[in-house]
């Protein structure tokens, strides 16, 4: 595979930095798809995001991203006003995360004061990103392929239920990563696929007593 001219002439993005602005917006957007409707979001800035993020609009890009604003949308610059309008609360602080890229953030989503979801992600440069932890579970999620995120009980037959539904739906699995903290407790599964997934298929996956939640990214 050679290098595409669109990697050189691109990405089209809101400045000033592909890692600190465009990548940050993308991280926010992907993370928000893992959370339910939220009314408050907290951003823990790590490393270079904490040190030079402000000058690069990393805060605005992250906040815009969680509201679904894309990295090439000039609305990023107005993220604070848009969040206030939508009555979404937000907060930024510095954190030190371990074993993670220099440009990283911990995003926590809340509803009525209750924690919904906690996501750690990194901006790798050139607008590329990687979600590495969801609610403490180790994952690898780049957002470059359509991705299904499942929370399930760690028990026999759950994964075969998921793969059977996907196979019957004509979906090819590109990668799959299962992660658990303890045996027979909650586990997660990140599945990257080659095709877009329809709502009905996600419902079929969810239709299993051992599956708690299914998200499509």
């Amino acid at each position, binding site marked *: 595979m050679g290098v595409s001219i669109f990697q050189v002439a691109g990405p089209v993005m809101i*400045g*000033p930095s592909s890692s600190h602005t*465009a990548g940050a917006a993308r991280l926010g957007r992907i993370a928000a798809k893992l959370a339910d409707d939220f009314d408050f979001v907290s951003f823990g800035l790590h490393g270079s995001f904490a040190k030079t993020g402000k000058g690069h609009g990393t805060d605005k890009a992250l906040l815009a991203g969680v509201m679904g604003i894309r990295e090439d949308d000039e609305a990023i610059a107005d993220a604070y006003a848009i969040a206030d309008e939508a009555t979404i609360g937000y907060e930024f602080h510095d954190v030190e995360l371990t074993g993670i890229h220099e440009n990283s953030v911990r995003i926590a989503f809340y509803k009525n004061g209750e924690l919904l979801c906690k996501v750690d992600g990194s901006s790798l440069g050139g607008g590329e990103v990687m979600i590495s932890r969801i609610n403490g579970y180790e994952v690898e999620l780049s957002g470059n392929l359509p991705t299904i995120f499942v929370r399930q009980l760690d028990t026999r037959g759950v994964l075969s239920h998921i793969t059977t539904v996907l196979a019957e739906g004509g979906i090819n699995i590109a990668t799959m990563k299962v992660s658990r903290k303890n045996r027979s407790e909650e586990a997660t599964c990140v599945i990257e696929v080659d095709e877009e997934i329809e709502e009905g298929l996600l419902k079929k996956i969810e239709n299993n007593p051992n599956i708690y939640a299914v998200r499509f990214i």
Partner: protein
Amino acid sequence: MYHSCRQLLEMTEARKVPIHEIVIENEMKNSNLSRAEVIENIKKRYRIMQTSAERALEQPLSTEGGLITGIASTQYRYSKSGSTLCGRFVNTVMARALSCSEVNASMGKICAMPTAGSCGIVPAVLITIGEEYNKTEEEVIAALITASGMGTIVVENATVAGSEGGCQAECGVAAAMAAAGAVELSGGTPAMSMEAFSLALINVMGLVCDPVAGLVQIPCAQRNASQAVNALLSADMALGGAVFPIPADEVIDAMYKVGKLLPVQLRETAMGGIAATETAKDITDRIFHR
């Protein structure tokens, strides 16, 4: 498929076609797109470049810390004053490069070329040549494709990241890409494009990445302007028949090796060069309230 400047040049010479033709055919295979789709995709990016090259010419834009607010409009006014040293054309090229940088720093929309920090060089050079010498939009877009194709060879064999190779890898490579495109747009041969590419890159060999306060403003914007001019003079030397004996692939390799020799303080960390001056430290304190 080509993976070097030499291969790309041989392919153009064997078929007697311009560089952009080989680049388009390669991209069709690479991205599995039709010819029309490749051109349409580049045209969309060209529209973004046109807008960012114009937007700050009349109207200063708000930038973090205000470090480069108004830099483009000041230069543009001067370009029209009739009393410049380098003339209206060269000063307009600089103003457009500065406009792209100012738009980028103001959280406006740009197209990285090859990076966000160096996004003004190729647009400023190709758009202004197109305007000055009455080139068609198709011709300017063809030159943009040539410039992009030359950039892919650097990405494949070296780097365009300031954190890896310093400013020579960002603004330097952008200048080399622009020089190759400028030669084609001005009727030069593919060999002359390669020559211009090499000349532009040797002119910046060793240039460090030293952003004041870590922001993509100073000296990034000023270097967008100066490297746009580097592209023009390199193209003119090649078009004039200057012979440069070192092949472009070897110049790219030399640039990459120089980048590896640069200490980390001079690779985008804001710990050396102009970023480490007393005034730069004061600016940093002022912006970040440390």
